[in-house]
C-alpha cells in the first residue's frame, strides 16, 4: 500500500510539472480547469471552456476524455480533477459510493439521443435495413453506456419492426466495441455498414461522410449526462460549473448535438 501511494505521488507530481510547463501565463488565472469528461463530451466541453474563458480570461482547460467508467475508477484511485462529467449515472454512482462526493452534488448537464449511422455507400438507408442478411452492424459493448442505450433502443423498435427485430439485428452484429468512438470509426471507414452512436458524435460530420438515420422519439433512448464538482477543486470551479448549466451555454450544447 505504502509503495503504491509512493508511485501515485510521483506520477501526479510529474503530471503537475508537465501541466505548469505547458500552461501559458495569463493575467487573471494561471491554470486551466482540469476536467474528466466522458469521451462523447470532449468537443462540447472544449467549446464551453473556451466561451467561459472569454469572459473570465484563463488558460484552456486540460481535458481527460475517456470512458466514464475508467474515469470514475481513476478518481476513486486518487486522480485530481476539478469536474467529473459522466455519460451515465452508473459511473457517477461509483464515485458517490466511494464517498468522494454525495448524491446531492450530482447535476444533469444535458441529454443526447441515440442515432443509427451508416456508411454513405452502404445499402442501409432506414431502420428496417439493419436486419438485412449480410449487413455488418457494429455496436458498443454492453459494459459501456452507449452499448446499453443502443440495445434498449433496438428493443424499443420491436414495437414497429416486429418481435424478431432485435434478434435479427444482433445476428448482423460483427463487433461490440469498447467505446462509442470506435463504433463511429468502423462505420466511417466503411468496414462496417451501420452502427448506433450518440447524436453528439456526428453533429459536426457532413452527409457525405456519414449517413444518419434518426430513431423516432417514442422509441429512442435519452442518454443523460451528469456532472459534479470534485473535492479540492480550484476556487472558481463553481462559476464554471454554473456557466455550463446556464442559459448562455445552451446554444453551445445544441451546436454540438445535445439537448439542453
Amino acid at each position, binding site marked *: 500500500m505504502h509503495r503504491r501511494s509512493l508511485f501515485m505521488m510521483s506520477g501526479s507530481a510529474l503530471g503537475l510539472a508537465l501541466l505548469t510547463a505547458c500552461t501559458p501565463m495569463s493575467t487573471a488565472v494561471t491554470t486551466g480547469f482540469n476536467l474528466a469528461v466522458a469521451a462523447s463530451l470532449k468537443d462540447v466541453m472544449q467549446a464551453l471552456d473556451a466561451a467561459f474563458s472569454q469572459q473570465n480570461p484563463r488558460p484552456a482547460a486540460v481535458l481527460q476524455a475517456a470512458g466514464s467508467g475508467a474515469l470514475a475508477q481513476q478518481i476513486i484511485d486518487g486522480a485530481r480533477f476539478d469536474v467529473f462529467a459522466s455519460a451515465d449515472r452508473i459511473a457517477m454512482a461509483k464515485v458517490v459510493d466511494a464517498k468522494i462526493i454525495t448524491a446531492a452534488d450530482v447535476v444533469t448537464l444535458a441529454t443526447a439521443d441515440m442515432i443509427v449511422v451508416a456508411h454513405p455507400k452502404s445499402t442501409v438507408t432506414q431502420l428496417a435495413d439493419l436486419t438485412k442478411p449480410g449487413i455488418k452492424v457494429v455496436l458498443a459493448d454492453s*459494459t459501456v453506456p452507449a452499448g446499453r442505450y443502443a440495445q434498449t433502443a433496438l428493443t424499443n423498435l420491436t414495437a414497429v419492426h416486429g418481435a424478431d427485430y432485435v434478434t435479427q439485428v444482433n445476428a448482423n452484429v460483427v463487433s461490440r466495441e*469498447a467505446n462509442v468512438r470506435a463504433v463511429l470509426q468502423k462505420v466511417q*471507414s466503411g468496414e462496417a455498414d451501420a452502427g448506433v452512436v450518440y447524436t453528439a458524435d456526428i453533429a459536426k460530420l457532413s452527409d457525405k461522410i456519414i449517413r444518419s438515420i434518426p430513431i423516432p422519439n417514442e422509441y429512442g433512448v435519452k442518454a443523460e449526462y451528469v456532472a459534479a464538482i470534485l473535492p479540492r477543486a480550484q476556487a472558481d470551479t463553481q462559476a464554471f460549473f454554473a456557466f455550463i448549466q446556464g442559459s448562455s451555454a445552451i446554444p453551445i450544447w445544441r451546436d454540438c448535438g445535445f439537448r439542453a
Partner: protein
Amino acid sequence: MKHRHLIDIVALPMLLLLIVPLIGLSSRSSLTDLWQAVSSQELQQAVWVTANTSLMAILCVIVGGTPLAVWLSRHPNSRWRTFLVDLPAVLPPAVAGLALLAVFGRTGWLGPTLTTVGWQVPFTPLAVVLAQTFVAAPLYIRSASAALQGVDHDIINAAMVDGASRYELWRFVIVPLAMPGLQAGVAMALARALGEFGATALFAGSMPGQTRTLALAIYINADYDNATAIAMSLILIVSAVVLLLIVKRVEPTHS
C-alpha cells in the same frame, strides 16, 4: 564491493517498477471472485478464441516464416532484408491494424477482389490470425535465422562428405542443431500473439466468441468487471511465464 552495492540500489527502482504492478494485480481480487470469473462464459469464450487464433497464427508463422528465415540466413550481411522483416515487430500495433485494413479492408487493395470471391477478412477470426501473424512472425524469423546461421559449416560439410542427401542434411543435421533457436523463436512469437491487442482491435473488431481475444476482453472489462479482467490477466501472465521458461530452457547460454 562498494560499486556492487551502488548498482544494487540504482537497479532496484526499475526492477520494482517491472515486478510490483504484477504482484499488485494479483492481490486486487479475492479468490472467490476469481473463481467465479474463471467459470464465466465471457472468460471461457475469450480463452477459446485466443487459443485457436494464436495457435493458427503460430502455424502460419512457422510454415511461412521458416523459408524466410532460411533465405535471411543465407544473406547474413544484408541490412535491408533484416530491416524489412524486423519492421512489423517494432511498429505500434495500431499502425499494424491500419496497414492491414489498407490491404484487406473493404476499401483496401485486395478487399474488393476478396469480396467478389466471397471472402471478407475484417471482423473474422481470420483477421485476428492475420494481425497476430503480422506482429509475431518477425520474432520467430529473427531467432530462427540467427539459429540457422549459427550452425557450424564444418559439420554441414562433413555430413555432405559422408554423402548426406539434401533432405538428410536438413532433417538430421541443420534442424536439430538449430532447434534451440527455433523453439525460442516459436515461444517468443506465441507470447506476442497471445497478447496482441492494437492491431486486432482495429482490424478484427471485438466480438465475443469470434474475435474477442483475452487482451481485448481485459480492456473491455477493466472498468466494469474488475474480477473478470484480473482473472483474464492472470491467465495471460501465467502463459507468458511458461513461454519465458521455455525460452530460458532452450536458449543457448553464452557462458
